C-alpha cells in the first residue's frame, strides 16, 4: 500500500518534471515561430508573446519570391542519398570492426576515429582544390562524395554490433552461414535501434551542413536550404521574420523523420520495457 503511494507520487513528479522540461525545450522554438509571424523587423525591445498583427507574409515571401521549393528538394535529395550510403558504409565497417579480426585492426579503427579530429574549417580549402582536379566543383556528386563515409556512424554502429550476443553469430555459423549472410540476417535485424538513430543523425548532418555545400555548390539551382536561409541576410539589413520562417520550415522535415524513426528505436521492447 505504502509502496503504491510512493510510486504514485513518483509518477506525478515525473510527469511534472517532463512537462516543465518540455516547456523549456519548446519555448525558444515557439519564440522563433512567433518572430516568423511578426511582420517587419520583428525584434522588439519588449518581446511580446503574441504579435499585434500576426501574418504569414514571411512564409509567402519564402515560397513566392525565392526558389525555396527548389532548394528544399535539393536538400532532401542530398540528405536522402547521404543517409542511405552512410547506413551502408557504416554498417559494413561496423561489422568488420566488431566481427572480423585482422592484424592492425585497432590501428585502423583509430585512424577512422582520427578523421573526426581535424576541423572542417581547415579541410575545405584542400578538399576544394582536390575536387577541382577531379572536375567535381559545382556538382551534386562533389557535395556528396565527402559525406559517403562517417566515422561517427561507424563508431555508433560498432558499439551496437558489439552488443549483439555472439552466440547468435555462432548459431548462424553452425547453420553454415558465411559472413555476408550473418551480416544481413543476424546483425542488421538486431541493431535496428542504432540504424534508426544513425538515420536521424546522418540525415540531420546533411540537412544542416553549411560550409561545404556553400563552397562547392554555387549555381542557384544546386543550392541547399541552409545556404538559401543565409542568403536572406543582406550586407546591411536582414528580414528577420523571413529568416525565422525559414528556420521553422527547415525544422519540420527533421522532426517528421525523427517521429518516424523513433518507432524503430523503441521497436520490440513495447511489451518488455524497462520497469
Amino acid at each position, binding site marked *: 500500500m505504502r509502496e503504491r503511494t510512493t510510486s504514485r507520487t513518483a509518477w506525478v513528479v515525473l510527469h511534472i518534471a517532463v512537462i516543465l522540461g518540455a516547456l523549456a525545450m519548446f519555448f*525558444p522554438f515557439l519564440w522563433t515561430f512567433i518572430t516568423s509571424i511578426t511582420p517587419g523587423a520583428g525584434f522588439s525591445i519588449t518581446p511580446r508573446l503574441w504579435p499585434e498583427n500576426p501574418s504569414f507574409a514571411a512564409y509567402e515571401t519564402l515560397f513566392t519570391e525565392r526558389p525555396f521549393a527548389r532548394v528544399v528538394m535539393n536538400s532532401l535529395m542530398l540528405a536522402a542519398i547521404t543517409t542511405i550510403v552512410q547506413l551502408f*558504409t557504416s554498417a559494413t565497417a561496423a561489422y568488420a570492426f566488431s566481427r572480423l579480426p585482422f592484424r592492425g585492426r585497432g590501428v585502423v579503427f583509430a585512424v577512422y576515429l582520427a578523421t573526426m579530429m*581535424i576541423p572542417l574549417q581547415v579541410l575545405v580549402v584542400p578538399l576544394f582544390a582536390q575536387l577541382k582536379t577531379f572536375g567535381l566543383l559545382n556538382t551534386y556528386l562533389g557535395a556528396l562524395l*565527402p559525406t559517403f563515409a562517417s566515422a561517427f556512424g561507424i563508431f555508433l554502429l560498432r558499439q551496437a554490433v558489439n552488443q549483439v550476443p555472439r552466440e547468435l553469430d555462432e548459431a548462424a555459423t553452425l547453420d553454415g552461414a558465411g559472413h555476408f549472410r550473418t*551480416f544481413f540476417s543476424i546483425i542488421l535485424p538486431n541493431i535496428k535501434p542504432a540504424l534508426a538513430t544513425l538515420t536521424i543523425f546522418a540525415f540531420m548532418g546533411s540537412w*544542416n551542413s553549411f560550409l561545404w555545400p556553400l563552397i562547392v555548390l554555387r549555381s542557384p539551382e544546386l543550392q541547399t536550404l541552409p545556404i538559401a536561409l543565409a542568403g536572406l541576410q543582406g550586407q546591411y539589413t536582414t528580414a528577420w521574420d523571413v529568416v525565422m520562417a525559414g528556420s521553422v520550415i527547415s*525544422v519540420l522535415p527533421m522532426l517528421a523523420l525523427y517521429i518516424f524513426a523513433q518507432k524503430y528505436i523503441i*521497436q520490440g521492447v513495447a511489451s518488455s*520495457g524497462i520497469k
Partner: protein
Amino acid sequence: MSVSTLQTSLVDRAPVTRLTAPVRPPARRGWRYGLTVAAFLLPSAVPLALFVLVPMVSAAWISLNDWNLITPMQFVGLDNFAELIADPRTAAVFGNTLYYIVGYLPLVYVGGLFLALALNRALKGRAFWRGIYFLPVVTSWIAVAIVWRWLLNPNNGVVNTVLGWVGIEGPGWWTEPAWSMPSIILASAWKDLGFVMVILLAGLQAINPDLYDAAKVDGAGAWTRFRHVTLPMLSPSTFFVVVISLINGFQVFDQVYAMTGGGPAGSSQVVVQQIYDLTFRYGAAGEASALSWMLFAVILAVTVVQIIGQKRWVHYA
C-alpha cells in the same frame, strides 16, 4: 544467466584497445578471408581516405607554409608552430575550449541520461514528449543563438527575470567576460540534450529485459537495478557519447560564432573560431593549419586515453 556472467572482461572483444600489434597475431586465414574483410571495409575506407585523410595531409603541408590563400605559399618549416607556442592567445583559446568541455559534458550527459530514463518509461504521450525534447537538436544555431541571447539578456531576459523572482540578481551573461562561456554552455547543453537522449534511448533498448527479471528475483531494488544493470549495460552507449562529445566539444564553433563571436574581450574565443579567423579573416592559413594539427594531437591523446581506459568500465554484451 546472471548479471555477473554477462559482465565478463572484454579485453578480447574490444578491438580498439589494441592500438599496438597484438601479442599473438590472429591465425592466418587465407586470401578469401582477406577479401571478405576488404569487402566490408572498403566502402568506408575509400571515401574516408580520399576525402578526409588526403586533405589532412594537404593541411599538414600547408602548416609548414606562410599562406594567405591568395598569393603563392612560402615554405617556413616549423615557424608557424613556434609562433603559436609563443603566442599567449593559443593557451587562451585552448583554455576556453577546455572550460567549455568541462562545463558542457557533465551537464549534457546527466541531463540526457535522466531524460532517456524518464522517456523510456510508460509515460503518457511518450512519443510526443520525445519529439519536443528533440526539437532543439534540429533547430539551426542561427535561430537558437538569437533566441538565447534574448533569453539571457541581462536587463529584461526571461532567465534573469525568473531569477529575480526568487531574489537572485542575475549576471550579465554574454555581455560579461566571466559569464560568456557559461552562457554558451547553457545554450549548448539545452540544444544537445535531445542528441544524448536519442543515443542513450537506443542503448536502453538494447538491454536484455531478462537481466532485470533476474535481478528482481535476486531481490534487487530500483536503485540497485539501475546501478548494477542499467549503468553497466548502458556503458557502450555512454562510452560512445563521451568520446563523441569530447571530439565534438574540442571543435565547438557554431554556437560561439553565432552567440558571442568569441567576445567580450576574447573571453569565449575557442580553438576552431581562432582557426576560422586565421584562415579566412586574418590571411594566415598556414598558422591555422598548424593550430588545427595541435588541436588534432590533443583530441587524439584524449581519445586514446579513453580507449585504453574503457577496459575498466565498458561492458559489451
